[in-house]
């Protein structure tokens, strides 16, 4: 599989909304208040109002379901969603929960972003799939997003 860097995306999350145990697992929604992204072909800010609607499954895997709006530095709006999985050894996941910085190679945190835009300058985003590798920091995750070539 060949890939190339699309962007680095860093988001800031506000206090998690803990719904408790539901029919699919333990639901926790993390509102996204801010952020920024930068890559060779696009850069800009994450608009407030997005979030990551996560479910902690019975097998210990956290399913991620992120939706954000990206605003490029030249005024385009890009709708971004991504499905992902996060899991790892219990002590590593516990350290992340305590807000510690953890070596991202010690756990699995991968997502598959999709993009939609009506701006012709960024229409290439409508026609690609991507994969990302995440690094969960206390202030919020940092995603290295690669285009699948």
């Amino acid at each position, binding site marked *: 599989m060949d*890939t190339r860097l699309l962007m680095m995306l860093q988001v800031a999350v506000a206090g998690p909304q803990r719904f408790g145990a539901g029919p699919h697992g333990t639901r926790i929604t993390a509102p996204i208040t801010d952020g920024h992204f930068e890559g060779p072909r696009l850069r800009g800010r994450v608009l407030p109002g997005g979030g990551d609607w996560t479910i902690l499954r019975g097998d210990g895997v956290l399913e991620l379901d992120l939706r954000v709006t990206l605003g490029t530095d030249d005024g385009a709006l890009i709708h971004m969603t991504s499905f992902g999985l996060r899991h790892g050894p219990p002590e590593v996941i516990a350290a992340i929960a305590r807000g510690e910085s953890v070596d991202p190679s010690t756990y699995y945190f991968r*997502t598959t972003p*999709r993009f939609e835009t009506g701006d012709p300058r960024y*229409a290439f985003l409508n026609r690609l799939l991507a994969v990302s590798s995440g690094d969960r920091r206390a202030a919020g995750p940092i995603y290295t997003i690669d285009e699948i070539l």
Partner: protein
Amino acid sequence: MRSRPLMTLRLSTAPTQNIGAGPRGTRLTFPITGGAFEGDRLRGKVLPGGADWVVKRPDGVLELDLRITLETDDGALIHMTFEGIRDDRASGAPYFRTLPRFETAEAKYSFLNRLLAVGTGEISAAGPVHVIEEIL
């Protein structure tokens, strides 16, 4: 991004059901009648009854939405889905990529519940072929 081979999936399809122009584009359903998959860690056959529910968008890109059941040679059932896109007008080679996901209750194959994957597709004379890699 690092990856490693998971399986090669070969599908056989019945005639396309052309639903026609709907609100999101032209809807085409490709029923799947069977197939086979093979990798280092799993192999078996595709059960009949799945399909790829495709929408051709106004920009010419096909949005793929597949659901099938895999049965391994040792009797496990694996629920497989993918979303994907096929862009035959991409510069250079056609762009045909998918994001497969798996669910199974069989402990031997539960690693499939915990991974994301990427498929590279092509249409062979016998039907679609997807080379699927695990994202490490």
